[in-house]
């Protein structure tokens, strides 16, 4: 049918060209170009591809959207109801879980853990990348090789020993400062510092630094700037794009992490949102709908961040080259 329409240049086909196919004039990447539109087969393929892409949007967004909407159901409706959408929209259920689970406090804790983590991620990885990429002292190749190995041996596999190590040091400082071991802020600090030892972000920094023109740093050094001064006054301001990328990765990582935080913070007043969600796994007084509400609470802040910074984020991934 469509084939005939195109051949006859019917009004329908003209309309389709106007709203859909003409846009392909500007297409400069991939295999299909505007001049291929003479073939009806290609036209159909283009329409099909577009529909599949639209379906991708739905698949990507649906689970989160469903979780938010299903959170309006009550327990019985959620467990025994056979409808995807809730019967009525009332925030009472959400409010109850928020209140009874004291989520405000966990949001604050997560914000603290994330903020410190981002600073450490940028500062420590940036400094090492600066040394390995620009200053290149004796032995930098050995250090870089060691770091690259960690990129491929994930720390999750040694989380037990990692935890034992952290614990010894935290206890040492707690005793030194005479603080209560359970609720002392020293329990949170390892979560900040561990963000400073990330081989992947380090490589991102290093590659970016190496791509910067050498003139700036050399000029600054001639002016008598120290190495550290060059980093803070020249390198960082010039590297804002990559700083933003690493920061975004660090925010997502710090917000989502629960394995180590759960070990370090369980039962302390510094528990983060994800630790709380993880605890729900074994909690007694938590119903299925509370669990769903908590999931929604845990995805709202990253979603807001994503909406605000979508451009930087999607561009950042490509800068990153490999996934975070």
């Amino acid at each position, binding site marked *: 049918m469509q084939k005939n329409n195109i051949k006859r240049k019917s009004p329908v086909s003209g309309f389709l060209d106007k709203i859909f196919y003409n846009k392909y004039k500007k297409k400069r990447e991939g295999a299909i170009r505007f001049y291929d539109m003479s073939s009806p087969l290609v036209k159909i393929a283009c329409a099909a591809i577009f529909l599949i892409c639209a379906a991708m949007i739905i698949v990507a967004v649906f689970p989160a959207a469903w979780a938010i909407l299903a959170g309006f159901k009550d327990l019985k409706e959620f467990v025994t109801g056979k409808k995807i959408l809730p019967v009525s929209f009332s925030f009472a259920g959400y409010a109850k879980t928020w209140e009874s689970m004291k989520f405000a406090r966990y949001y604050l804790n997560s914000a603290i853990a994330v903020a410190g983590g981002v600073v450490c991620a940028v500062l420590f990885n940036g400094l090492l990348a600066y040394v390995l990429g620009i200053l290149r002292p004796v032995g930098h190749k050995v250090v870089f090789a060691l770091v690259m190995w960690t990129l491929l041996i994930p720390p999750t596999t040694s989380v037990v020993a990692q935890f034992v190590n952290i614990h010894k040091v935290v206890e040492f400082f707690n005793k030194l400062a005479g603080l209560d071991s359970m609720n002392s802020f020293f329990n949170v600090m390892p979560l900040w510092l561990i963000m400073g030892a990330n081989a992947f972000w380090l490589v991102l920094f290093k590659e970016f630094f190496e791509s910067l023109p050498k003139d700036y740093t050399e000029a600054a050094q001639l002016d008598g700037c120290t190495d550290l001064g060059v980093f803070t006054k020249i390198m960082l301001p010039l590297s804002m794009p990559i700083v933003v990328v690493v920061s975004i990765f660090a925010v997502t990582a710090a917000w989502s992490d629960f394995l180590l935080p759960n*070990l*370090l913070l369980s039962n302390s007043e510094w528990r983060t949102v994800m630790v709380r969600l993880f605890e729900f796994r074994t909690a007694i*007084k938590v119903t299925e709908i509370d669990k769903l509400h908590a999931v929604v609470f845990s995805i709202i802040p990253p979603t807001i961040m994503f909406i605000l910074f979508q451009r930087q984020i999607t561009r950042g991934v490509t800068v990153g080259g490999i996934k975070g």
Partner: protein
Amino acid sequence: MKKMKALCLILALTMLVFTVSSCTSTAPASAGSADTPPAETPVSAAPPESEPEEQVTGTFICGIWPADTDYVALQQHLVYEAIFNAEHSNIEFVRFYYKYATDNFLPMVQAGTVPTIFESWFTEPAKLIESGGARDITDILNERGWAEAINPSIKELLSKDGKIYGIPRDAYALGLGLNLELFEQAGLMNADGTPQYPKTWEELAAAAKKIKDETGAAGLCLLAKDNAGGWHWSNIAWAFGANLVTDNGDGTFTSNLDSAEAVAAMEYTKSLKWEYDVLTADPLSEDWGTGFTQLGTGAAAMYIMANDATEQPTANNGLAVDKFALVPVPAGPGGQYSLSGGTPYFFGANASDAEVNAALDYLILMGKAPVLNDLSIAGMKAGNATKVSMGAPVIQRFPCWTLQELIDKENEITAEFSNVNEALYADYFKAVTTEGNLRLEESGQTQNMYAELTKVLQEVLTNSDADVAALMKTADENYQSMLDNPTA
């Protein structure tokens, strides 16, 4: 002076009972504590009078402090705390909300921050003791005369090499929880408001089928997601006459998972899915918590559960308190048994004798100790009042202490606050007090045995062609290999 203060606080506690219970329609006419003569206590709870300038000799880290979200319990504990402080000026009281979990305990042992007292599970004593996190309290219990008062089989569970490490908070015995709304819809009720519940596993299959046909809801919620599956299933195995493990007495164990009786029990379980089709949509997604959700929301009519968890289907998952009943675990060709255990209290390895004593005094205030006095009576009342206000059934506690006058008093207070038709629980309590009915968990590496059984359950519930005998044989070999090669 101090006694006066304590009395005032008891009064405050009694007031609290009224405040809490008056929120509900089923409030009892009178709490009636004034009429009760103060009972004798085996051990005096009052510490010796001390000098005006007292030194703090210890810190009581109260690891059983309720979560700040648990408003009702919190109100109670604030009163307990006030009484405690009035009586123990030489001990610093520290509120500490702690919920035991296997992934957070060892960190605390390492840090030396295990609270003075904490609740755990009955599966844990061996690990807790070996990890060095729990302390030996034998001498203190002997001094107080509490050691003899612990239910002997429970004491056995909490001891190692003749030393006692914990005391029971509550004991439980498994029964069958029923959703009476579904029983009504299926026409399985007697004229007197009691359910026509299944007495044997054969009857259970038939009753479950009837419920499924009449209401569309599952007849039985069987667990097969995690080790709780094997834990519940061992009740079925016993009813079919199986002995799952033999303790050889020399530190070795022999697994009998592939005995003819165990295989018959598993064949029966398989038939619930493939012949009767009375289970929830996928038992492999059900764990201890979702089971209560299914029962409470009316998605399943029957669920194996214990008397100490009756607030789960009701208060927490919305089933009206008068629509719930607890009946005995069905019998089988091998008899009728109920698995029993309980929730224990343990004491941190770093706690001093004075601190442990402080914790035990606190238990008296809570009414969880083998001590009967005004404080413990008020504590028991407050506990029951909380249940009434939450819409959870107030039923007898399972005796974990053998002190008869305590049991009598507890039953009296339970009757006073009762918000349920006792006939709905009568058969359960009759069964579990029958000689030889209660069985403790199997010995050996119990959790590993449950894991092996759960794997078999998962296979027979997802594969209608599963060869039960072969699967049980594999499970038996796996478990025997673990018993022969302990990894810890």
